[in-house]
């Protein structure tokens, strides 16, 4: 992926498409909070239905070096899809320049075909299977967080890990292995960036 918005005058629009309860909203919150602390202008807008779990869950994230006026956008720079439920809805946010990253362990190829008619930048990753095999299925969302960090700005890494540890602190007390697992999953996600 060419768009590496490290330190210059960048503006990134990202839409994350997952299932309710999967952790998409948590990822988006941690990402934007860390970016805010690194003096990015940020906006995070969640979008989901009435289900407590399940159902389509979208997160609209913007990072910019200029003030962000409007939280909703028509075309994303990056669209990460980890739900097989409704790829039709996320298609609204895809343009010729959008980089579509999807998890091939979750999203069926036939669901992605329509995206390929809009953009040639469609990239499969295998985060779910890799995380499940090497670590644990429950760390999948943290691997995604690591991958997104690598895609967006690797300098956010320290802040993101700190915020992640704060977010899960009470779970770490109950499960002493969870912190180490999350850190490994984050690192695994960073390595997946290369594939994306």
């Amino acid at each position, binding site marked *: 992926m060419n768009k590496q918005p490290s330190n210059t005058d960048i503006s990134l629009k990202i839409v994350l498409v997952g299932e309710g309860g999967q952790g998409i909203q948590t990822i988006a919150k941690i990402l934007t909070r860390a970016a805010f602390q690194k003096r990015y202008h*940020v906006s*995070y807008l969640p979008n989901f239905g*009435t289900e407590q779990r399940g159902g389509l869950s979208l997160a609209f994230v913007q990072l910019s070096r200029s003030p962000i006026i409007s*939280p909703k956008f*028509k075309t994303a720079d990056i669209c990460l899809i980890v739900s097989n439920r409704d790829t039709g809805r996320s298609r609204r946010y895809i343009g010729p320049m959008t980089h579509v990253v999807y998890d091939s362990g979750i999203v069926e190829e036939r669901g992605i075909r329509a995206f390929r008619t809009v953009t040639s930048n469609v990239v499969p990753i295998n985060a779910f299977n890799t995380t499940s095999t090497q670590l644990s299925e429950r760390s999948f969302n943290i691997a995604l967080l690591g991958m997104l960090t690598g895609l967006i700005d690797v300098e956010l890494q320290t802040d993101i890990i700190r915020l992640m540890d704060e977010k899960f602190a009470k779970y770490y007390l109950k499960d002493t292995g969870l912190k180490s697992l999350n850190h490994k999953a984050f690192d695994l996600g960073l390595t997946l960036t290369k594939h994306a």
Partner: protein
Amino acid sequence: MPRAKRRETKEFMQGNAVIAHAARAAGATSFYGYPITPSTEVFETWVQLCGNPHKPALSPVTKERLSYLQCEDEMASGFALIGACLAGKKAFTATAGPGNILMQDAFSAAEALRIPTVAVIMQRGGLSTSTVIYSQEEVTLTCFGGNGEGFRVVYSPSSLQDLYTYTLKSFNTAWKYRYPTFLLGDGYLGKMSGEVTRYPMLKREYVTPEPILLGPARQKSLSTNLRNCYDQEEEINSIIEQYRSDYARDSKAIAESESYRTRDAHTILIAHGIVASAAKVAVDMLRSTSARVGLWRPITLRPLDVPSLVSAVGNARRIIYIESALGQMSRLINDALIAYSETGKSFDLPAVRSLYAPALGITPTEIVEQVLKKS
């Protein structure tokens, strides 16, 4: 409200949390409500601000204890709110969609009795229960709900910063002029997170709440009669006429709007709330191609800032209404323009076009496309 010489802090916050913090800064001390998405975090954050129930936090403005009550439903919440305000508390509530419908009974009573109340409305999708996400479909309900004439104040914030600024303002407006006052946001604004600058209210800006039932009037006589039941039609007619006169007078001080790059504009976009933010970006995009486009945004939907509206659209060739509803805002504007034209002042209504997307977010790109569309 000037913000100079205040201690400001810039933070990353969710919109609903911004409102709770602003209410605390405004001197609010009590919240009565029943949680409903997408407004729930207003209540949640307020509960957190209240602290330990055995040792409640104090208002930074009045040093009174902060408190809350989760009622059995929205009707009870609305009337509990009225009760607290009658007792001299600066209280507020937050609701959405079906909850907004249920609270209209209480809001209508507040309108009839000129009881200052503040209600945060986070619009979710209509019709009925619908989605928990977003729309601008509670404009009519919030402005004119209940059996009344809409003697209310309705602010329509368009950003996280606006949520802070106009929450502060809502409390002062409600208690200064004694109208039910609404902060009409939406699910996007309430649920989104971003940067906001918080600042304290200055002491001189604070409007002290009058204990309507327990105040000086009560000391003179054994009863304070707030009347909302009348025998004769002439009686209630005279009350309504008095309210109309008061409202017309107060509207001059309350009504607010924003005119953005309208001075030489041939096309005026009219949008409110978060859609106005998208429209502002669209104006900048179009101006970069030399298109003469501007934005007029009502900050108060009730009362409307009619002089500013007329000034913005008076020389335009066309206006474009943009809203996430089927014309709830544009009906307010059209009514105001017709009423203005009836005063006999010279005014030609420009050509009108609309971009209505009920219950859908509207992006700057979609607005640009609409402006550039030939017919």
